């Protein structure tokens, strides 16, 4: 009995020490790249007293091919420009022109590493656009992709700090409370891992009230805003995520009704949060891939982007987070779309299309045409990655079709092998809008798109609530 107690005590101590070690482990060094379409992070590795990055991790998300060994040279193709790297050589060749990398090229287990400082000249020359590199914080901004903010403190009985961002943001939130003998201090940190938040101001002081200061900092590929005050603050996201309001928590017994803005779902809090559910909206085609021609100058790629933006708005109004796979006129390969969706662990994937023939809206659920046996372990065959989510995909397609019909639209649900539905792990569908009338004026067409977006969002909200209710 006595030995049992001793063993239990030892186990508790070991678990505590392990937890402490894990929590205090330094975060892995990383570089974050922000583009108009997406942002991504890659590891920064120390070699020979210098910081190195894997070239494939830097360039592949931007549309480059993986490095291929030809003779003694590693070659990468990007937008018809060839990059040549030679192991142990300090010089690279881009489109026939030499470039000093500031350190020699390393190759480890087939992975090509280049010095971190070479990222700026490499991207500038390969992308032929403006690239900003915040060296100390390891953040790269491609093509003037910045999210700026304005901070305004509204004084009153219940002061509020309103942060207005130029783009929607969804920060991680961390709170530290310190209860001293005489004072209570509260520090709230908003961390922006994916958003290219920048600021010219580092510190803003607001006196010694409930909200006292706002500090902007950037470190290890992440930007942070820290708000310090003497009261616990609550956080409200509104305006489609473009506004974040921090204000002291209202007293529980207060009879005063809240007069604050319509509230939006508050941002996820603290380290306890579970992976967030969101809908990945994929406006098909883009860039040189114009998609179907819909008469005159109307191209499928433009309609899909417009409808996707409208759908995101409709979903967010229903409290469902949504992301666009592309939010500008850029070309993303079909397989890459599936990779991005799977990497980001989307809850639902919706591809938006538009094209003839017929009238109304067609909703496609995936049809596995190339079913393969699942591989051992956690891996899924690429061609049938959808296999486990097929039933849910069909349920969503049916729900959306029903909502479309309720709104008086001609809608049909079909099962087809539409790219890249079968490569998506999450429930996936495609919605295809057919042009109501090629000669229809834009307002008519816009009205149809708004109705479709509302119906699709409603269908998803319905299924989402059912999914949430399941054990």
């Amino acid at each position: 009995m006595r030995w049992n107690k001793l063993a239990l005590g030892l186990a508790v101590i070991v678990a505590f020490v392990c937890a402490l070690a894990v929590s205090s482990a330094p975060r892995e060094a990383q570089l974050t790249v922000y583009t108009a379409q997406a942002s991504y992070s890659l590891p920064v590795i120390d070699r020979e007293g210098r910081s190195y990055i894997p070239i494939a991790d830097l360039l592949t998300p931007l549309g480059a091919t993986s490095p291929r060994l030809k003779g003694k040279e590693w070659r990468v193709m990007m937008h018809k420009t060839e990059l040549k790297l030679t192991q142990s050589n300090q010089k690279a060749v881009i489109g026939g022109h030499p470039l000093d990398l500031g350190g020699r090229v390393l190759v480890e287990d087939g992975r090509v590493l280049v010095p971190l400082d070479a990222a700026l000249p490499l991207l500038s020359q390969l992308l032929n656009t403006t690239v900003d590199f915040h060296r100390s914080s390891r953040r790269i901004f491609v093509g003037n992709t910045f999210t700026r903010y304005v901070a305004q403190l509204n004084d009153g009985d219940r002061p509020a700090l309103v942060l207005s961002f130029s783009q929607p943001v969804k920060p991680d939130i961390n709170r530290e409370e310190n209860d001293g003998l005489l004072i209570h201090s509260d520090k709230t940190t908003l961390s922006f891992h994916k958003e290219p938040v920048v600021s010219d101001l580092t510190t803003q002081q607001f006196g010694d009230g409930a909200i006292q200061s706002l500090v902007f900092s950037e470190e290890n590929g992440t930007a942070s805003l820290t708000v310090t005050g003497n009261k616990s603050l609550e956080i409200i996201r509104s305006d489609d995520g473009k506004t974040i309001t921090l204000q002291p928590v209202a007293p529980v017994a207060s009879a005063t009704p809240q007069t604050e803005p319509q509230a939006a779902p508050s941002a996820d809090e603290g380290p306890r949060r579970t992976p967030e559910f969101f809908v990945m909206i994929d406006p098909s085609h883009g860039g040189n891939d114009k998609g179907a021609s819909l008469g005159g100058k109307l191209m499928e790629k433009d309609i899909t982007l417009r409808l996707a933006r409208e759908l995101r708005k409709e979903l967010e109004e229903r409290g469902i987070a949504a992301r666009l796979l592309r939010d500008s006129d850029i070309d993303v390969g079909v397989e890459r779309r599936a990779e991005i969706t799977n990497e980001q662990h989307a809850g639902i994937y919706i591809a938006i299309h538009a094209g003839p023939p017929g009238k109304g809206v067609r909703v496609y659920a995936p049809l596995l045409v190339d079913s393969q046996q699942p591989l051992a372990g956690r891996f899924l065959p690429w061609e049938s990655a959808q296999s486990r989510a097929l039933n849910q995909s069909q349920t969503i397609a049916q729900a959306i079709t029903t909502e479309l019909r309720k709104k008086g639209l001609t809608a049909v649900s079909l099962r087809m092998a539409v790219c890249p539905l079968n490569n998506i792990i999450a429930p996936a569908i495609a919605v295809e809008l057919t042009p109501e009338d090629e000669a229809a004026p834009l307002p008519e067409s816009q009205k149809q798109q708004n109705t479709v977006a509302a119906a699709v969002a409603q269908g998803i909200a319905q299924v989402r609530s059912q999914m949430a209710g399941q054990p």
Partner: protein
Amino acid sequence: MIPRHFQITVALVLLAILVSGVIIIRITHKEEAMTQQAAAAAPAAPIVEGKQEHIQVLVAYDEDQALRWRPADVFLPADRSLRAREIVRYLLAQYLQTPSPHPLGKGADVKDIYFIHDDTMIVDTTAAFADGHPSGILLEEMTLASLIETVTASVPGIKRTKFLVDGKERETLAGHADLMSFYQTAAVHEMAKEFE
């Protein structure tokens, strides 16, 4: 002495014969050129070595977004690859005529069809087949379902079909329909049912 009016008449007759000959030669050349052009644009005519067979062809109709079985008499050889090729060519010819129930781009044709392990059919199409294919989910899926269903109905034992374009793999037919997958005959059968 030959009378002058007789000489003039003979000369005119000879001139008329000469002019007629030139005109006939030019018309013949023009006809030949047109025939060659048509042959380049359309799939080749059925080869004559085979015997005429009565088959069923699943034809795509864009107007009502449907696939319907239609009877057809086609010359088909005994060899499975050639047989499949002639069936595909017959179907493509239906789509290339004017008016067409399901228009395809000019020059759409099949370069070769061959089999792997007897049960996997590889259809190698011309670049024009994919490059000129109208873009749209339904239009592309109808083409694939129509081709696979038609061939598998008359060439037994095909379990999977894979499409190549000019000998290479391509992600999609015209931006939508999956060309990377091996289409299983049973799944395509289900897909075709969606168009009924």
